[in-house]
């Protein structure tokens, strides 16, 4: 029993050292995918048909194929392309962490764009018309009227997508990245204690996701101003908070 605990302790210590790799992949691809998804959402409501077609095609391709294939194609496949292999880009494409981030950015941006697109369609028309009626246009309308509603509508599904992404980072281990899962497999390879090691790894993923979901739920609550459980009584005018 004592030996068992010592083993789990030392394995956990090893796995914890791999947490930054997992978080790095999550952070880079999370941020890039969100930015890209914002662009894709804008394209999906463009007036000319070409951007709309690009967005639809992007979603079709990256949502319709397994992420692991996309990772393999970028990491193993692109190495076969002479101008990548011998070009300046090789410094990036030989790096498995870069390839994982790239694949996850492309794949998850397709999902996030669909979330944003749905949320955009769900922003009440009347709120937008009220903005237009008083002379708002373009960026001002987007920033002051559309985005606040859109973000509140999108956040629950977006949080879900981020949780999915956390778990997807483990696919990096299939192309030699030593993230939590990668290190776990390495430890198993010479200790053969599969269940202990995977349980410790799972516990770390749970911890990361619990933290993320707490943060995102807190953000959701914070943005949900008008449903906050505050007393309905008239609030004295002296208390008004000015943005």
């Amino acid at each position: 029993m004592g030996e068992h605990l010592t083993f789990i302790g030392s394995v956990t210590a090893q796995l914890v050292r791999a947490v930054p790799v997992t978080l790095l992949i999550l952070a880079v691809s999370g941020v890039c995918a969100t930015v890209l998804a914002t662009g894709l959402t804008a394209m999906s409501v463009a007036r000319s048909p070409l951007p709309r077609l690009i967005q639809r095609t992007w979603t079709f391709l990256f949502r319709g194929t397994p992420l692991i294939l996309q990772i393999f194609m970028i990491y193993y496949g692109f190495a076969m392309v002479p101008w990548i292999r011998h070009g300046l880009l090789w410094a990036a494409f030989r790096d498995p962490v870069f390839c994982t981030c790239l694949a996850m950015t492309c794949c998850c941006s397709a999902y996030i764009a669909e979330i944003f697109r749905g949320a955009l369609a769900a922003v009440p028309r009347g709120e937008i018309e009220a903005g237009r009626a008083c002379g708002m246009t373009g960026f001002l309308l987007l920033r002051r009227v559309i985005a606040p509603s859109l973000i509140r509508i999108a956040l629950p599904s977006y949080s879900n997508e981020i949780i999915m992404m956390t778990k997807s980072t483990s696919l990096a281990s299939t192309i030699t990245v030593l993230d939590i899962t990668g290190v776990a497999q390495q430890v198993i390879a010479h200790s053969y204690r599969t269940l202990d090691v995977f349980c410790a790894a799972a516990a770390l993923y749970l911890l990361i996701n619990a933290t993320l979901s707490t943060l995102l739920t807190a953000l959701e609550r914070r943005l949900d101003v008008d449903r906050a459980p505050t007393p309905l009584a008239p609030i004295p005018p002296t208390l008004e908070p000015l943005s």
Partner: protein
Amino acid sequence: MTVPPPVLTATNIRKSFGDREVLAGISLEAREGEVISILGGSGSGKSTFLRCLNLLEVPDEGQIAIGDVQAPLTRNRHGRLEVSDGRAAARLRTQTAMVFQGFNLWPHLTVLQNVMEAPLRVHRRDRDEVLATARSLLERVGMAGFHAAYPKRLSGGQQQRVAIARALATNPKLVLFDEPTSALDPERVREVLALMRSLAEEGRTMIVVTHEMAFARDVSSRVVHLMNGRVESSGPPAHMFGPDASPAFRAFLSPAAL
């Protein structure tokens, strides 16, 4: 007596949705201080017409001017009118304000922020000045105690009164009301109508699409009856609600007159 200058001139406005012609050529002029009530059965095109006036809806034909500024409508290559200059259209809208049937307050902003938004962000007026105006407007509409409240926590009547304060915050030349009391229960209708009446009395130029016959008769300076996308008849309320009104308008009124 000098005739006040026109605030709004709409000429021959036409609009179809698909095959259905909703507006079949409507002209309307609103002079400063006029309160025009637009009446008509459902589907007569009154809301669509009102929404054409601030270009929320782009008419297929016709011209609109606010003061002496023409709306930037030009014909595209298919021969249809379109807004040729979005910024100019937006500038034109800053001269007007709209009060909606569904209030359409911004839910993520407090009552005070809702009222301050347009003068602050669109007109870029001085913050202290905007705050002072917003405070006095909210006082005026009887919502002084609700500055920090969010719209969803208010009753329909309260929301509509805030929406009216929001519409007045930029001191518009023309206020458009799109069935402002249709979503309210009778108790709330009274408080909103009383407020609109006081606006009319202070000389605001207003165009009101409404089903409130008493308001049209007692408050407006002119009543316009729309039928099948045309002005069926129009005139001062004394005429329109008198014995010489057109038969069609009298028929429209009869169920309400009971």
